[in-house]
């Protein structure tokens, strides 16, 4: 039963990528066009924190990726973060169905302890320079890099989760194992980032 559902999800996800023209590294996003209306809510960041993305950045990204990607997204909210124990940096959250919360981030440079190797790789991939010493990492950001980090590892990652839910028709029921869900969302971020980078290069 579960395998069947996952197969359907995988097929729809492949079809979606094809429709978006995100299959190859050179392909432009074919479904670009005006997105449907998404509410963007901004709660100002606290002192010492910032929202790396502005509403205009989000709108630009939505226009670039087009309505197929943002269909079903109800709101994108920029909010303060309450740090839970065991998780040091919260980037974004998807509340199914269709509500994405982007958390405010500490003003760089960040000083983080006990980061996993995977997290350090994610930061470096996003363009941060990371200095490690005795289990403590000091993370330096250029403003564009931090913006891209939140755009892809936050917003687009959560949209990846959203699309999996949305395109299986099971909008409030978990349609696959969490690890598989995360892997698919990460794969979606990769193709989006590739298309975005290629488009920037062409400009």
């Amino acid at each position: 039963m579960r395998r069947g559902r996952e197969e359907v999800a995988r097929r729809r996800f492949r079809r979606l990528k094809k429709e978006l023209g995100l299959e190859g590294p050179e392909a432009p996003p074919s479904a670009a066009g005006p997105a449907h209306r998404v509410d963007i809510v901004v709660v100002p960041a606290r002192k010492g924190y910032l929202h790396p993305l502005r509403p205009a950045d989000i709108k630009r990204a939505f226009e670039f990726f087009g309505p197929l990607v943002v269909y079903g997204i109800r709101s994108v909210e920029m909010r303060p973060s309450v740090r839970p124990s065991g998780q040091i940096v919260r980037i974004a959250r998807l509340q199914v169905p269709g509500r994405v919360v982007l958390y405010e981030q500490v003003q760089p440079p960040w000083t983080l302890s006990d980061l996993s190797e995977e997290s350090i790789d994610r930061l470096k991939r996003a363009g941060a320079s990371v200095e490690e010493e005795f289990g403590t990492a000091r993370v330096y950001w250029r403003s564009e890099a931090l913006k891209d980090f939140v755009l892809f590892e936050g917003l687009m990652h959560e949209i990846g989760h959203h699309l999996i839910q949305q395109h299986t028709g099971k909008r409030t029921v978990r349609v696959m194992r969490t690890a598989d869900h995360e892997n698919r969302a990460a794969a979606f971020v990769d193709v989006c980032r590739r298309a975005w980078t290629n488009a920037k290069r062409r400009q």
Partner: protein
Amino acid sequence: MTRRVRLVGDGVENPANARALMDAAAMFGAACAFRDTRGLLAAWDAERGGELDLIDTTNLIDQQWPIVAVENTLGASIVFGATLPGTQASIVVGGERLGIRADLLRAAARTVSIPMSGRGVNTLNVAAAAAVALYYLMAGRGLAPRLARRPEERRPALLLSRPKDHVEAGSAIRSAAAFGWRTVGLDDSSRVWYGVNRGVTAEGRAAARSHRNLIRVLPMTTGSNLAFRRIVVAGARIDGPPIHRVNLTGRDTLLVIPDEGEAGMPSFNSLGGSVERARIDLSVPALHYRYRLVATIVMAEAARQTGLRPAGQPRLPGRRGLTYESTLSTVATGGAEEVDPAVLKAY
């Protein structure tokens, strides 16, 4: 005062449920009839045969027999404190899927509901619901439900002891979940639940609504010594005071519901703690015993004594719904043990 009651199943589809409804009515000395709107008669003839009393809408909506509808609708009064509207009445229960039809609900002199706090499963088997309604309405004790801020803290542990039929066991487990138990012990000495063939397993789990029933069923043995201060054994044939006069609540209390079929009952003295007994009053307990019916009545009484949360008080916080979160993870530090490098080198 002699009360005359007839139990009416409205739109019941499953012949097995119809048979259980007839047994529930017989346990209380009531007549039983069916308004057949969903092909019960055809299924009955095909599967079991025999006599089935049918009633049409005109005869059912009769001023002489005011209707008491058992349905969880807005404005329904709680069954625990309800009484019959007169000396005779029709108690109507709805079918498995659609409940009581609107025309009967409109014609009902009184609507009563059985309060349930279960998550996942929040309905009873139709015969079990009828048994609970008959028990409280016919006794007419007007037992008011207790209000409690934290009923969970007063809920006793529950042991279903030696059910002899897998469907009866499954239905009792469903009732336990509907009344809010999250864990139930099962003494499966009669081998109806664990290690049985696939057909029996499927029927039992279907009766328990296991596809959405979140309850945990733990195998327990009636002979084992358990750490409970009080053991209350409750049933229809048990020699003891009426169940509503026995305290069934408390975290240190184990409520045992044995199957009182033909075979002898085990001794409960070996469970540890002081053993008390409680009896539910049935009109004809010897003739028409069904485990699910007796067990559900006992559970309903325990739920009444445990208490209902006052209206308007928010429920305990539940799951927030489906969420996904993107975070930077840390290396796991919990459970690690610091080691002096010198010790490590020596090792």
